[in-house]
């Protein structure tokens, strides 16, 4: 890894890490509360560990001049492996909290193991750890291929990966020990937020630099989505996290916004984290890997354009549907509901465009579980966007809000769409990157597919049931005109569904572990073959960008 860096880049890496270590050490020494000190130490030790890594390769001979002529894929390889580690960790935590709701004594009298602290560990671990690393890794791959350009330098992609994972580590370790802002999906405190801004700017500049070097006149649609993901997440992150720390030596801060304005800002962020992290980014993934794996060009260039700009424009209005019937002014609720309904159009255009791309390749969907992962992901994307628009309608929301239906909806998207497209992309990418003909075991890919699909269905169906039962019980009146059920009665009814949900989640987790094993064995056989003549991977070459470009331009 360090051997790939030029001598100057090694020096720079060393300097950056020293700087980070000094900041971490300063936090640990001056920190006025214990939690802040712990985070200072984590930053210091992360930088120190990486410094040793750099030193171990510091005096290696400088990289071959030939290197600059090839795509730079080491950061992608690392990103994929890190993403899978996060996946297994965060899905394990997810399943644990699912069992906690059925058997609450599993907290063992330990603060860090209680539901309220583990829940953000699960959500952050999945969204940022698994999803974010997968997005960064695949975006590095896609932007180089579709631009026919190499990374401008070897260091920036590593800065992004190291820095981003340091952010994830600070976030997740913080919840365990009690550091959180409480804003859903934006829980990390002010210093972690500032750090993420720095990394995100580095990421965006790197992306622009690759695009600036491109030999393709046009920017491919996958990059539009990746760019929207990077840019809009930056806007959302900065605005929603505006806060005043109680001092520069404390972890705690107070949000700049309060009450109704804070609620609107939070759900403008929260819903668009779904839109631009969990949708736009993964649509970028879909628009590259699905046509590639199917061997077909994207069905329609025009649908790509309409879908992209529709999603970019409409989504940002939809956040207020999280606040129906609350103290938020009704005009904002109505706008949110209206745009949520309209959002179905670009969403289905994007999903339809993906599915129509498979025309002529459906036999491959039948035979190839990797492509089937992507196909089913597109179907789930279509289904959960329909469900989302439906749930945003005010009277429907009166029933669904605050219930498990929301949880079911989120997981139809997170398991069925985000995770399945990621697994599909990873199964396509791993043999390409490690120069193998195929995954170590296509059978295990098949096993993973069916575990993931059945797990998702069990999960979603149990949450639909529990959510709708809950919602109905809360609003049922008896003949004398009073409420028929106490809250506790509705809770008791949830028990069987909570167990079913935890089993569905377990299936999904086992699938991910099978995937890890398969990826590991593929990488290992690649290492054992090192030195042997490489397989030709013709679809990786220079021609790829043109091959998959839309058919009907101009």
């Amino acid at each position: 890894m360090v051997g790939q860096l030029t001598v100057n880049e090694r020096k720079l890496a060393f300097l950056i890490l020293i700087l980070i270590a000094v900041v971490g050490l300063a936090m640990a020494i001056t920190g006025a509360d214990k939690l802040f000190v712990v985070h200072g130490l984590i930053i210091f030790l992360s930088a120190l560990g990486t410094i040793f890594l750099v030193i171990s390769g510091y005096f290696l001979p400088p990289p071959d001049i030939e290197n600059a002529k090839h795509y730079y894929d080491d950061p992608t390889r690392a990103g994929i492996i890190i993403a899978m580690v996060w996946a297994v960790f965060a899905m394990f935590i997810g399943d644990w909290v699912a069992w906690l709701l059925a058997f609450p004594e599993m907290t063992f009298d330990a603060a860090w193991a209680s539901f309220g602290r583990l829940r953000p560990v699960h959500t952050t671990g999945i969204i940022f750890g698994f999803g974010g690393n997968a997005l960064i890794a695949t975006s590095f791959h896609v932007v180089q291929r579709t631009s026919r350009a190499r990374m401008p330098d070897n260091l920036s992609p590593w800065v992004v990966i190291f820095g981003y994972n340091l952010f994830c580590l600070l976030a997740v370790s913080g919840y365990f020990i009690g550091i959180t802002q409480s804003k859903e999906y934006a829980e990390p405190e002010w210093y972690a937020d500032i750090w993420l801004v720095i990394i995100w700017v580095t990421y965006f500049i790197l992306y622009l630099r690759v695009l600036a070097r491109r030999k393709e006149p046009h920017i491919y649609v996958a990059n539009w989505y990746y760019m929207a993901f990077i840019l809009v997440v930056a806007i959302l992150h900065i605005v929603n996290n505006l806060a005043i720390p109680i001092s520069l030596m404390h972890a705690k801060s107070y949000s700049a916004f309060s009450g109704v304005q804070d609620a609107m800002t939070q759900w403008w962020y929260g819903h668009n984290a779904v839109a631009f992290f969990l949708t736009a980014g993964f649509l970028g993934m879909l628009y590259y890997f699905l046509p590639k794996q199917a061997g077909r060009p994207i069905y329609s260039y025009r649908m790509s354009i309409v879908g992209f700009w529709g999603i970019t424009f409409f989504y940002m209005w939809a956040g207020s549907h999280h606040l129906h019937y609350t103290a938020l002014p009704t005009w904002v609720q109505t706008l949110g509901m209206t745009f949520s309904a309209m959002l179905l159009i670009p969403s289905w255009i994007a999903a339809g465009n993906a599915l129509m791309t498979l025309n002529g390749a459906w036999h491959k969907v039948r035979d190839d579980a990797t492509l089937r992962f992507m196909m089913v992901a597109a179907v789930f994307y279509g289904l959960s966007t329909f469900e989302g628009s439906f749930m945003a309608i005010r009277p429907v929301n009166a029933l669904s809000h605050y219930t498990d239906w929301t949880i079911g909806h989120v997981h139809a998207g997170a398991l069925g769409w985000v995770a399945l497209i990621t697994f599909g992309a990873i199964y396509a990418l791993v043999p390409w990157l490690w120069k193998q003909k195929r995954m170590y075991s296509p059978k295990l890919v098949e096993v993973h597919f069916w575990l993931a699909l059945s797990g998702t269905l069990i999960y979603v169906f149990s949450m639909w049931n529990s959510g709708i039962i809950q919602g109905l019980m809360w609003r049922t009146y008896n003949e004398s005109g009073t409420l028929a059920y106490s809250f506790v009665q509705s809770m008791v009814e949830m028990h069987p569904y909570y167990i079913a949900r935890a089993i569905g989640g377990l299936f999904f987790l086992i699938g991910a572990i099978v995937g890890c094993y398969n990826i590991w064995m593929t990488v290992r056989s690649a290492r054992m073959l090192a030195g042997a003549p490489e397989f030709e991977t013709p679809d990786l070459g220079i021609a790829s960008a043109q091959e998959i470009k839309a058919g009907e331009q101009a």
Partner: protein
Amino acid sequence: MFNFHYRLERYSIRFAILVVIVASIGGFVEIAPLFTIDETVEPAPDMRVYTPLELAGRNIYIREGCYACHSQMIRSLRDEVERYGPYSLAAESQYDHPMLWGSKRTGPDLARVGGKYSDYWHVVHMNNPRDVVPESVMPSYRWLGRNELEPADFDLHLRAQQKVGVPYTDEMVANAINDLSGQANPDGKRAEGVLARYGEATNIRDFDGDPTKVTELDALIAYLQILGRLTEVAHQNPVMKKLEGPK
């Protein structure tokens, strides 16, 4: 349109700028007016700020992730009003940085839980929820009663609250640390200061039943007991009065 796009997608910076503009419109139209339109938050002249002990309790509520299972937002729906009380008004969370409206009710709404149960009920419930609600799936929070509250920096908390716009007086900031323990010691000298600064109606009690120390449980119960009681404005709301009918 497609010809325009065919040219646009050749320039990365132009494309990026257009993405930012298109994506910013929705948020700008929906969020900015909330800060300027006066009717967004109704006046609540009787409303007081959280005492230091209540604010410390609120921070524990945040730290433990209580908001993941409990909402603090009663919607304007008949069944919610009958189950939980008058629907929540914007004014009631105007000093909440951040708000804790929540998004999920694994447990019941807490917007008006203040005064609904005794302190002792809360102590038992936090130690083991199943002792008072056998069907409960809430974790036990035994460590709250063991952990002593660390008040050393509490003036900084109030100072930061002041900076984000909560009307704490400089006197409140200066006395924050004393008031923090004063509220949990009804017989101590510091209690009077709390009443003077935060009003005669402030709860001055040893909330957790352990007079030897001020614990995190003291703070959390002090917070839970004030939920929905910082202002009467929701009860005086004319729409609510009509719903409730003549008394």
